[in-house]
């Protein structure tokens, strides 16, 4: 392990710590498993910096590692007891009224996270990166999809999520 690796990790943790927490909330509902996932993400990031070769920006690298850890976690959980929905199914999700009862700070944020958790890859990655403020090009770099495909999916996901929010707000 090198000093550069430690420095890069410290920089990444300081700059992206909050974003990693948001990603973890959108990937895992259980608070204990969420904490484990966040720790796993930090360890994977630190390990990854041993091989960081600047082939992409630090920001892209961090998001790639974090999203691959999150995707692996979600896939593993889903194999046992979780259900995911496709982009086409999101409009038919149950009302957020029950989901909002989860012990989170805000009902709306809890609902948003619960909706995202139910999405399949790569929709989950795309929408979380979009919500972090990334544009289609950056999202394409992280996910490996084409910018065109990303832009189309972002538009559909935004529409579906917004529609769901408006509907449940009137329940």
């Amino acid at each position: 392990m090198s000093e550069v690796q430690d420095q890069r990790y410290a920089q990444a943790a300081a700059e992206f710590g909050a974003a990693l927490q948001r990603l973890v909330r959108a990937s895992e509902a259980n608070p204990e498993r969420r904490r484990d996932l966040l720790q796993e993400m930090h360890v994977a990031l630190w390990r990854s910096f041993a091989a960081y070769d600047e082939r992409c920006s630090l920001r892209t690298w961090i998001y790639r590692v974090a999203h691959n850890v999150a995707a692996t976690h979600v896939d593993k959980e889903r194999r046992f007891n979780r259900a995911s929905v496709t982009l086409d199914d999101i409009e038919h999700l149950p009302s957020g009224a029950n989901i909002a009862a989860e012990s989170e700070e805000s009902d709306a944020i809890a609902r948003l996270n619960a909706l995202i958790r139910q999405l399949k890859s790569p929709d989950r990655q795309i929408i979380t990166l979009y919500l972090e403020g990334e544009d289609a090009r950056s999202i394409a770099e992280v996910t490996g999809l084409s910018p065109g495909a990303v832009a189309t999916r972002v538009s559909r996901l935004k529409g579906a999520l917004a529609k769901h929010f408006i509907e449940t707000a009137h329940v």
Partner: protein
Amino acid sequence: MSEFDPLRSLWSQQKEEPFAMSLTDIHERASRFQTRIQWRNAIEYGAGALVVFAFGAIAWETPDWGVRAAVVLIITGVAYICWKLATIAGAARKDDGVSWADFHRAELVRQRDATASVWRWYLAPLLPGVVAFILASMFSPAEDVPLIARLGVVAVAMAWVAAVFFGIAHINKRASQKLQEEIDKLDAARRG
């Protein structure tokens, strides 16, 4: 995508929770991770060794050379399967910094190849041993059973083995096709 979006605004309102993980903690966790991998490998090899030991004991105990030869064939087959499992089990590393699509595709390809070639690395290595075991058991000189009855039992046993083997092959072939469909979909999304 830079215009004001209430969802983005909502998303950014999430409060950061206290989270402390020192570099020492990180180093320790990373080292524990390596130890866990080593343990997992040791357990897998240990399970293989247990199977070899159990069948080896049968080969040692039995006075019948036909059964003994069949058991040796089964041991060889199991050892080959263990080796293949170890070589094809390596999933893509999460900390390689590759894009999600590359990471996910590598995993899908690995699973597709493993399921598509299940005859080669899983079923074929076991087949000689299983067939030899059935034949050797049924035609053992120690058994005082009429020939027609022996042939009947062999036929039933062979049919059962064939059904199990073809069942496994069929399930894996379908899984392999589904994985290929997923790979095709992913490639289409990568091309845009």
